């Protein structure tokens, strides 16, 4: 408790009531909720863009939007979903809310930096979306922005895109530094590292990846902007530049970015499963080592995105092996989660339904991932709808399902009220069916000849594309029960009490919602966050 003394900041000068959510608040819980709500708004925008894509692809000819618009839409969809929804929500959102509780602190290590990190996001997001209207044409080169295409498409939109991603990357780095400092330096006296809830380890690992790899993306995009604005030749083959170098630098960040999106979800699931299965998290120590192994391996696998880019054979071989081996620590985590459920007393509520569906979806995406890691397999399906299906199983079926599960789990803590279970189950059912209907057929499409990022395709693929579009429609509808649930609960939801799940982690050992500085008295010392079955019940 030496690094930060938030009581200096969070006094009477801060706005109270709902206005605080629109202020430069230094309270980690306010910032966490700011991230969550802001991220969800961008999720709806990104979802609408996905709706445009699936509408266009409901017929084999390009007939819904112009071809240029289609490329703008797919670029914005990817960028919004990654940089404005998933990364900010699983890191900044749940991280800011939960990490100070888990380490027994009253706030993050650097509250002002924390607020700055959040307030970079809305302007960056508005800038990105507005490039569609003000710059004449938004970026059209995909979220990967490969040169030379990104050098030849309308320059203004591409530069605005770069600026926006730089701001979001900066926000991400600030957050990463803050999490590392908080977990390592702000622990309550007496609390050891190996006693921390698993989400702390996930955020520590994720933040290491953020701090190591995001600056590489920033540097790369700055060079790309020089190529566009000042006509330098870093990546322009006409001026002696090398486009494959860009791909190496880009994926040096963007593969770890997958783990930046997925590791926090692993952490959140590790919190949810023990509570609702009433059992300790199985294999705590191996879970910690698995996270760190994934962090290390995640940094040395980037070139598996470039197996068709003319990489030399030895490089293909090395990256195949490194990528395949990520399956080992990941597999350990999944078996440990199954063992956590085994012999428990499982309450299959909305939080659990989403968490268990995450296991199903992610195992599927993981298996196709190991297949994709094999060079000869990848050479056929690279840049096809097989890959689109695969990574949506990872980031949507994996992370987004966990975000929803976490919402049902922690909403009582955020607001003091319980979300409605019936609407929650409806939300789950629609999401699960819609998601699988949308993305499962895409694997077959890719194997049989449909490349990604196309506005038109072989008419032989029409039926499966239409099934996929129906799935997307169901996913769009699935957000309605969630929105209705949140609004109805805010009006007359069941009062939750401090600890509706009888959970043992520290955020439940205070009021709902918690007071400024988290606990009225001393922060509790929780050395066994998963001590189910051995301690007395915590009675509310």
């Amino acid at each position, binding site marked *: 408790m030496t690094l930060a003394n938030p009581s200096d900041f969070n006094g009477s000068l801060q706005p109270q009531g709902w206005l605080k959510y629109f202020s430069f608040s230094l309270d980690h819980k306010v910032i966490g909720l700011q991230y969550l709500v802001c991220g969800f708004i961008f999720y709806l925008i990104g979802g609408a863009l996905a709706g445009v894509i699936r509408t266009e692809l409901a017929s084999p000819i390009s007939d819904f939007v*112009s*071809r240029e618009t289609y*490329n703008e839409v797919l670029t914005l969809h990817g960028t919004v979903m990654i940089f404005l929804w998933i990364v900010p929500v699983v890191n900044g959102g749940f991280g800011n809310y939960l990490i100070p509780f888990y380490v027994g602190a009253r706030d993050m290590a650097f509250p002002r930096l924390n607020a700055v990190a959040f307030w970079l996001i809305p302007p960056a997001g508005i800038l990105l979306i507005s490039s569609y209207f003000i710059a004449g044409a938004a970026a*059209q080169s995909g979220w990967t922005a*490969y040169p*030379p*295409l990104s050098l030849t498409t309308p320059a203004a939109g591409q530069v605005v895109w770069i600026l926006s991603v730089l701001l979001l990357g900066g926000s991400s780095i600030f957050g990463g530094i803050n999490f590392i400092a908080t977990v390592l330096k702000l622990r309550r006296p007496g609390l050891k590292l190996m006693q921390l809830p698993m989400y702390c380890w996930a955020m520590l690992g994720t933040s290491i990846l953020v701090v190591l790899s995001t600056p590489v993306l920033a540097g790369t995009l700055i060079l790309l902007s020089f190529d566009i604005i000042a006509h330098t030749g870093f990546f322009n*083959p*006409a001026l002696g*530049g090398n*486009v494959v170098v860009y791909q190496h630098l880009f994926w040096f960040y963007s593969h770890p970015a997958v783990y930046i999106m997925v590791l926090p979800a692993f952490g959140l699931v590790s919190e949810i499963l023990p509570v609702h299965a*009433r*059992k*300790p998290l*199985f*294999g705590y120590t*191996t879970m910690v080592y698995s996270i760190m192994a994934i962090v290390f391996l995640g940094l040395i696998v980037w070139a598996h995105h470039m197996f*068709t880019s*003319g990489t*030399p*054979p030895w490089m293909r*071989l090395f990256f195949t092996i490194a990528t*395949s*081996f990520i399956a*080992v620590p990941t597999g*350990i985590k999944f*078996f*440990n989660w*199954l*063992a956590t*459920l085994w*012999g*428990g*007393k*499982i309450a299959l509520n909305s939080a659990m339904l989403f968490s*268990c569906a995450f296991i*199903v979806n992610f*195992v*599927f995406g993981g*298996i*196709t991932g190991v297949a994709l890691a094999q*060079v*000869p*397999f990848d*050479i056929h399906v*690279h*840049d*096809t709808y097989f890959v689109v299906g695969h990574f949506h199983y990872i980031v949507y079926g994996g992370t987004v399902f966990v975000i929803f599960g976490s919402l049902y789990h922690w909403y009582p803590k955020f607001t003091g009220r319980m979300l409605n279970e019936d609407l929650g189950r409806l939300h789950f059912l629609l999401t699960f069916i819609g998601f699988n209907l949308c993305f499962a057929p895409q694997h077959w499409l890719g194997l049989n*000849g449909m*490349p*990604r*990022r*196309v*506005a*038109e395709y072989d008419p032989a693929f029409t039926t499966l594309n239409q099934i996929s579009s129906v799935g997307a429609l169901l996913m769009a509808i699935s957000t309605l029960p969630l929105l209705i649930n949140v609004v109805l609960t805010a009006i007359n939801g069941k009062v939750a009490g401090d600890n509706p799940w009888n959970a043992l982690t520290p955020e439940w050992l205070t009021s709902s919602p918690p007071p400024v500085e988290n606990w009225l008295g001393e922060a509790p010392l929780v050395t066994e966050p*998963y*001590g*189910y*079955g051995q301690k007395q*019940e915590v009675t509310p």
Partner: protein
Amino acid sequence: MQIRTTLTVLTAATALVLTGLWVGNNVNMLPIGASSNAATYDSLFKVLFSIGTMLFVGIVILLVYSLFKFRRRSGDLSDGLAIEGNLPLEIVWTAIPAVVVLFVGIYSYDIYERMGGMVALNDHSAMDHAAMAQPAMQASASSRVWGGIGAAGMDAPSVGKVLPVEVTAMQFAFIFHYPDANITSGELHVPAGQSVELHMEAKDVIHAFWVPQFRLKQDIIPGQPTVLSFTATRAGSYPIVCAELCGPYHGGMRSNVVVHEPEAYSAWLQQNSPISTTTT
């Protein structure tokens, strides 16, 4: 009791393995194969599909079984068993994925080698070969020739000499030029059974040459002449698809590869050769 558990586990595992093998061998997810490495690819696919099915079905059954078997009875507020870990079990499920991954890695390396992927195309001899085959390339191929799947896969039952074809990719078309016959075509025509070597160049942005029925794909990168070899095995017409986002009409950047029987190919050469048209 111990024996019964062991028997149940063994039966379940056997059933799972058989299911996986059946699915891998009987569910066809791929288009027809029309090149010499398609068969090699398909055998890799079968193995991966079988293993993947075993793991996926096994984990889903285990999960669903747990959710039913260990569901909380209403009114039960007690906790489950306080089991925090089990070292032998954890060693087992670290070892299983490690062995599976190792097997898959070694097997796919073998497949890759049989496809000719380990033949270094950017070495000196390959460069000379490319330069000799196509003098026009010599000027632009200042340093390196980048290769995809290699020249002569061990499985390639190719006969006769290699047929060189120059491929130019641009927004939004492929153009094929036959240096020996001096034919320029918007479609690729090749004889079955003969090894074809594509010398590919991109004029503007990155494109990719993909024939799903050949199970082959190679990016065509501006500034880096690229060689891609294959041997077609099955007569017919197959789509050539651009697989790298290259601009607004990316989805429309398609062509066809027509695989002829050798005699039909000679006829096609005759018909389209500029010399024959001027002499007749």
